[in-house]
């Protein structure tokens, strides 16, 4: 955890960098700015240790968003970083978030010289990774649509392992060079949990196909793809974790994914509110500055309340080390925070957009991009009703959740 002074310093650094993102990415015309500049900005972010790195030699491995520090020091710094980056550009924050999740999916020993995965998949510093943990629809750890799963299966045929099936809506900082996949495994991997296995695979592997998802509403600075695998040969040294350990890591990845999304949404909402206040203090209608109209004050007041709800939800367990958090508690917290995106962050941004009248609807004022970005988070990696059902399942301690 940061003390107050460290926190101020980190915030100041992040704000400076957020300013750079805006200047570089969003200065020109175009709905989402100049997306060609994202790789360069990622390199800069890496130099500031903001981006998680698969290589333990790189400082980002520990310090980046969802880096190894989370296990001991809690999630606060990652949440703070994502929210502040999102104040500039939610898509860029999502890219940093995605890289962090993929690194989090690697078990602590992965990538260290002499460890098994390093032999088949050298994890170089700065390498872009993707984590495949989301099914076509629903939540991988929920049993609402049958058994737990992502849509990926590891099968054993005559002593050889093959990865088949699909995982969808994989988020990454750019086209990933390697993937960490969560799959249901054959009996041999089911010793202590229902057959979960995680494995690393190069994205150029034979039989593996990554297809960009196509035009989407927002978060366009991040890369998103569907993964299809047809009998991708997997060797034993690509297996990262099995059974309960794999499932626990998946729970951490899923929880941090939802929390990170909520932090990004919080950043978007805060920024929208700032823009709205500035505009309302400058725009005359009805014979006065519009900030003087109750109608505008109500819109902004509701947005302020929405931001406060998100802040307090995200702050709830932010100081608790990830290593000491029960998956059930983490997922319950994360579910609630992610649900607040649709109800609170989206409303805040929409209300702020409304205070700009017709100008809010136009690209030039930035609010239209913020609405697109935050709306994309409404259903990212989990439809809200599925989250509600899953939250209820977790709280009631029934079914799969019971095992935790």
């Amino acid at each position, binding site marked *: 955890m940061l003390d107050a002074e460290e926190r101020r310093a980190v915030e100041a650094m992040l704000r400076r960098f957020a300013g750079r993102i805006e200047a570089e990415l969003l200065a020109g*015309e175009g*709905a989402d700015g100049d997306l060609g500049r994202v790789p360069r900005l990622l390199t800069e972010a890496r130099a500031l240790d903001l981006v998680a790195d698969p290589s333990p030699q790189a400082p980002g491995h520990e310090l980046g968003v969802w880096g190894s520090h989370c296990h001991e020091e809690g999630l606060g710094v990652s949440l703070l970083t994502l929210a502040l980056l999102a104040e500039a550009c939610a898509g860029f924050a999502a890219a940093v978030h995605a890289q962090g999740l993929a690194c989090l999916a690697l078990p602590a020993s992965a990538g260290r010289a002499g460890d098994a995965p390093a032999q088949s998949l050298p994890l170089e510093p700065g390498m872009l990774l993707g984590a495949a943990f*989301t099914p*076509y*629809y*629903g939540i991988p750890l929920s049993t*609402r*649509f*049958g058994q737990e799963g992502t849509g990926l299966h590891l099968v054993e045929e005559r002593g050889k392992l093959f990865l088949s099936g699909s995982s*969808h*809506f994989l988020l990454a900082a750019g086209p990933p060079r390697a993937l960490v996949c969560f799959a249901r495994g054959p009996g041999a991997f089911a010793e202590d949990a229902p057959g979960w296995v995680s494995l690393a695979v190069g994205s150029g592997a034979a039989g593996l196909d990554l297809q960009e*998802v*196509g*035009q*989407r*509403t*927002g978060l366009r600075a991040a890369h998103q793809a569907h993964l299809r695998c047809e009998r991708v040969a997997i060797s034993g040294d690509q297996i990262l974790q099995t059974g309960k350990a794999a499932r626990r890591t998946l729970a951490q990845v899923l929880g941090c994914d939802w929390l990170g999304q909520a932090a990004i949404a919080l950043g978007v909402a805060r920024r929208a509110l700032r823009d709205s206040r500035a505009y309302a203090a400058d725009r*005359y*209608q*009805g*014979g006065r500055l519009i900030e003087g*109209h109750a*109608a*505008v004050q109500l*819109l902004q007041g509701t947005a302020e309340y929405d931001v406060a709800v998100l802040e307090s939800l995200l702050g709830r367990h932010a100081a608790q080390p990830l290593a000491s958090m029960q998956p059930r508690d983490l997922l319950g917290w994360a579910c609630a925070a992610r649900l607040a995106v*649709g109800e609170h962050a*989206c409303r805040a941004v*929409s209300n702020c*957009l*409304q205070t700009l*009248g*017709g100008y*809010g*609807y*136009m*690209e*030039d004022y930035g609010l*239209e991009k913020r*609405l*697109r970005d935050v*709306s*994309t988070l*409404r*259903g*990212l*990696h*989990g*439809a*809200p*009703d*599925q989250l*509600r*059902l899953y939250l209820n399942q977790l709280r009631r301690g029934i079914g799969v959740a019971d095992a935790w």
Partner: protein
Amino acid sequence: MQSNLSHSIQRLEPLGRWLYDHSVEALWERDTRTLPRYLRQRRRAYRRFAQERIAPLALEADRSPEVYDPRPLLAEAGRRGFQSELLPWPLGRMPYRALLDGKVFAVILKAEEFCAACGGIGLSLLAHDLGMGPLLLAGHLPTILRWQWPINRANLRGDVRLVVYAITEPGAGSDMEESAGAARARYTTTARKVNGGYVLNGQKVFISGGAHCDYATVFAVLEREDGSPARVDTDYTCFIVERGREGFRAGRRERKLGQRACDASQLFLDDVFVPARNLVGTERSGWALNRNVLNYSRGPVGAIALGIARGAAESATRFARETRLNNKPLVAYQEVQLALAEMWIDVLAMRGLVWQSARHFLPQQGMAAASKAFCGELGFRVANRAMELMGDHGYLADQGAEKAMRDVRLNQIYEGTNQINYLAFVESFWESDLGPGDPARG
């Protein structure tokens, strides 16, 4: 229907059976059946046109609005009579029965159907009715015969004549739609009386269809002869300005969140001379004329939101029927059924209010504002619900729901923001229902 219930119904007395509506009929048909014949026919014709001609263009027009050319569809809609429905035959194609019924009923049916297929293309067709509004509502027969009739005739031949409506200015948006603001509006568009006509100067913004228009009905503040300061609420005057008039040009086309197939453009007026015959109605009656145009147009704007919301609900339903999980269609899961029910009930509620307000013999300020604001709000809720139901698929462009969300968000802004429409509702029912005095005086 549950088979035990069917059997039980069969055991009812004949009258009891007759009193029990257990027919299997789509929502759309069920509502259509409640309309008089002439409107039923129109509703079917609008839907056919929307499905055959608008829907196939929707995604591409949204993706690349700068290359979408609205004129072929304007010509086709014109030939079918859809662009001349504010006057009856021989002057236009308004159904005769509408003279005795609500005046905008056909227009709201059209708005729902067109916008269920695409909010943007729908708007690019419907903006014309708004632009034509002042020509009729000024109540000046020579204006109708000189302008409205020939424009209708041309459109019926497929010879496009697009008229757009221009009130909004950079410094005066809500102020052009609301009583208290109008008195203090910081306007820039003015008219000066000169020999044989008027000279117009100023700038309009966000004009739907402005980039492609053949005419604009432009509202300007007519300077006073004694030189005292003129005001929107006392000196507003409407003129029809033809494309090609010297000094009149379209400027920048805005890049916007949704309804992208229809441009929102600046219009510039630099010393534009218009002859006296271009005056719409009478001098200094423009504030009332503008307000009444809004009374006629806000119901249809509510119907635009209704149409977009219905499109979103249809997308979500299609997704839930086609997606199979664990050997069952998504729609078989209870939470999905509940979500669909919420969306469709919202759509029904919107239609209920839009139709109810359109049934009034003349469109009325409070009812029109209620339709517009309620549907803007609910339409956004439905589109978001559709996106949510579809999970990750909801934010993909080819699924339709995200476009609906972007499109319908506009309905809380144009034709007066929802806040301004709530105030219009209060103003409208202040004396009769809500309180004594004049709310405009604060």
